[in-house]
């Protein structure tokens, strides 16, 4: 009964490939997020959707594109992967945009070789 689930958990891919990470939440939350944890362990927000509408779009390369088909899903598509994209990506959700007590998925460790 995972509240926020991401797939895959591990992803190893070559430079230049395109890949997607999927996220689903069964909590009935309105808001979903993508965070990136880099090699220095900082968690940085990338995107946030509220009821399928993009509300936070941080300065990330436009090779990263989030897609929210419905408010329970927020997928992350990455084009032309680069070595520097290697990181752990966390999906999260919260009841509302102003509620920052977010529930996180277990993370997707992306390794670009």
């Amino acid at each position: 009964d995972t509240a926020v689930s991401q797939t895959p958990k591990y992803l190893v891919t070559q430079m230049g490939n395109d890949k997607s990470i999927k996220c689903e939440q069964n909590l009935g939350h309105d808001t979903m997020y993508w965070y990136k944890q880099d090699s220095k362990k900082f968690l940085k927000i990338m995107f946030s959707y509220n009821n399928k509408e993009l509300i936070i779009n941080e300065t990330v390369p436009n090779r990263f594109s989030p897609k929210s088909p419905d408010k329970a899903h927020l997928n992350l598509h990455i084009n032309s992967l680069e070595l520097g994209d290697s990181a752990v990506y966390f999906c999260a959700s919260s009841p509302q945009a102003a509620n920052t007590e977010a529930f996180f998925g277990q993370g997707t460790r992306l390794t670009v070789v």
Partner: protein
Amino acid sequence: DQQVKQNSPSLSVQEGRISILNCDYTNSMFDYFLWYKKYPAEGPTFLISISSIKDKNEDGRFTVFLNKSAKHLSLHIVPSQPGDSAVYFCAARGSFNDYKLSFGAGTTVTVRA
């Protein structure tokens, strides 16, 4: 430009003693602060929070203290238990529709038996 800093990357404490984790921030517009706990291969889980109108919030063994004038908060865990061994992230959010959470780099706590 890290606005939330956890200057101690690690902390080792004996079971039953107090763990004190520190966090400093630079943005005076932050008005809500959270602590998250993270086990290996899992996503962060919400632990405790405090609003800027308070200087202390307690939840069982966990107490967060906020010193706004010093832009400093701390998390006290009393008594520390082996299950508390994890990485603890401090996070902060601004006001007036600033929904983004800024995270520190985390402090790894090891509770020795």
